[in-house]
């Protein structure tokens, strides 16, 4: 088991969401599930074998352009074609540098919190205000529709626990505010979880910053995000 992105040459596309976000292309790798949470690499592979001309096509990743950010030539070429020239590249593992496009059905949206030097994420069931100043619906309206929005990215819940989640910025060590309570506990990093704020701590950056400082959250002392 345990396929990793490095040892896998063929990723899979998912174009299902193009029906409403025409320039959106998900490329699903073993360590980054589709942002809706419904498609992992294995699902896409199976779907392709059942329906070779369907929405899940093999994408040979090709030459590595940037290993840290997660950018490959083969993927870029595919995305350029599949988005009909709208998107010419994106990075798998970064939120700051041209992250993957976001369609509309993401389970969660991650956003940078510049004052905390960290990243928050909110899932679609949380209706309230979040520290970045936008509710899930506002965030979705701003970043959705098949565009790349530096500083924001849609992702699946499961993706948070995957090894490559936003690894270019330091991975989950950057997470300063999480809005999915039970899910968070499943992540298996009890100590880090205690240092991450949720909506009971605060819904603005100012409210959660003292908490993060007190708990000595790793993001506070990490390299500046921007």
């Amino acid at each position: 088991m345990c396929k990793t992105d490095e040892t896998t040459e063929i990723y899979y596309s998912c174009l299902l969401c193009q029906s409403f976000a025409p320039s959106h292309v998900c490329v699903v790798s073993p360590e980054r599930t589709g942002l809706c949470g419904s498609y992992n690499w294995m699902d896409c592979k199976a779907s392709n074998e059942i329906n070779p001309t369907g929405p899940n096509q093999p994408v040979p990743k090709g030459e590595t352009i940037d290993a840290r950010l997660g950018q490959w030539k083969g993927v870029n070429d595919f995305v350029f074609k599949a988005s009909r020239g709208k998107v010419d590249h994106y990075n798998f593992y970064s939120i700051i540098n041209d992250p993957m496009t976001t369609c509309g059905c993401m389970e969660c949206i991650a956003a940078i919190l510049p004052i905390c030097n960290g990243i928050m994420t909110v899932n679609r069931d949380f209706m309230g205000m979040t520290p970045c100043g936008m509710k899930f619906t506002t965030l979705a309206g701003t970043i959705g529709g098949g565009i790349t929005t530096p500083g924001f990215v849609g992702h699946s819940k499961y993706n948070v626990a995957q090894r490559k989640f936003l690894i270019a910025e330091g991975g989950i060590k950057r997470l300063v505010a999480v809005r999915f309570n039970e899910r968070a506990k499943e992540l298996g990093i009890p100590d880090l979880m205690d240092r991450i704020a949720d909506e009971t701590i605060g819904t603005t950056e100012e409210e959660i910053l003292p908490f993060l400082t007190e708990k000595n959250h790793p993001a506070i002392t990490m390299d500046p995000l921007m």
Partner: protein
Amino acid sequence: MALTGIEIFKHLPKTNCGKCGVPTCLAFAMSLAAGKAELASCPSVSDEAKAKLEEASAPPIRPISIVTGDKPLKIGGETVLFRHEKRLENPPGIAILISDTMAETEVSRRLQNFKKFRYERVGMDLRPELVAIKYASGKPEAFAALAGKVKAETDGGIILICEDMAAMAGAVAACAERKPILYGVTGANFDALTGLAKEKGLPVVAKGASLDELGGLTDRLTKLGIKDIILDSGARSLKQTYTDQVSIRRAPLLNKVRSLGFPTIVFPGEMTDNPLKEALIAATFMAKYAGIIVLSDFSGETLFPLLVARMNLFTDPQRPLATGEGIYEIGGPNENSPVIITCNFSLTYFIVSGEIENTRMPAYLLIKDTEGLSVMTAWAAGKFSADSIAPFIKKCGIADKVKHRKLIIPGYLASESGGLEEELPDWEILIGPREAAHLTSYLKNTWKS
């Protein structure tokens, strides 16, 4: 788009003071990047940052707010060529034309129609917003009197169509609080009309014979500090107007041509004498980029479809249409009337309420907020299950309106009935039909309070 939200954010004060109307600088930066806000809304940007951001953050097509007696009419502010790319932002205003040579009765008829043709659909108010007044009599007093009459008798925004500067000044004085739109600035009357516009702070229509001429005019206007500009390319054939509309939309969006980044005005009535063709032309420009559409007259059978077309085009394709949560009384129900619940997807609401009307049995229809999702979708997403329906039933106040305790749920929610009986012990849960079409026979055969 020149700068991303993050790049803009770097130049903002980062205080999250909230004075710009959204809670954080980041949220504000995102609106700026999307062309939905103006930098001026943040009182604390440094001058240095302002200079850097102004150019980059100004919306490609300037949003303009036109004063009416009701809420202001917003036009422009568009960010895409096609609805499916994001959404179309501001529906074009619809104007009726009157002139100061029309007989008094004709003017009254038109103003009556302006007031009369209003419709409510999906909780939205569909109505025309503007009255265009044309100077043709050669008598400035008549023009001014008409402007005064429109202001007094309607809540419409006003467009003054007039070449004569003295007559224009008189009419402006007669309806000054309504901030009329001045039609229109050309190379010939530039100084006189801009003087008036500047003095009173009025929006103007720039009218050129070609797009180049138009761009030249708007450059001169912006240099004078007049920014509320509406464009008329001068074309009066369907084909040429269409071409111009598309060019005027593409230039600022795709090629950053600021001088054409303004909403437009079109006159379908000057392209044909046939009222039906006029309506078709108006529909064309509703989809293709008009900011204001001036119609030569209103009739219900052409205005209503135009208003509905406009509503459909300008809804957000990424967000399902939703009806407000609450109790809807259909046919004057009483304490023995059936109580039926469904989701707040607009289409569901219309179909279910229509079917209830067909039964001619008065009923209470409860609409639960399911974020615009249909019954099955909402149920699958956990937004229409016993634990969310029960609190709604308790707080919505339906228990005070009926004596019985019977709740009819959609047939597709049958699996929730057990849960509901547990959460709502006072209530008997009745499983209704799966399809709205079967409501009539269901109610007729089974309902007993």
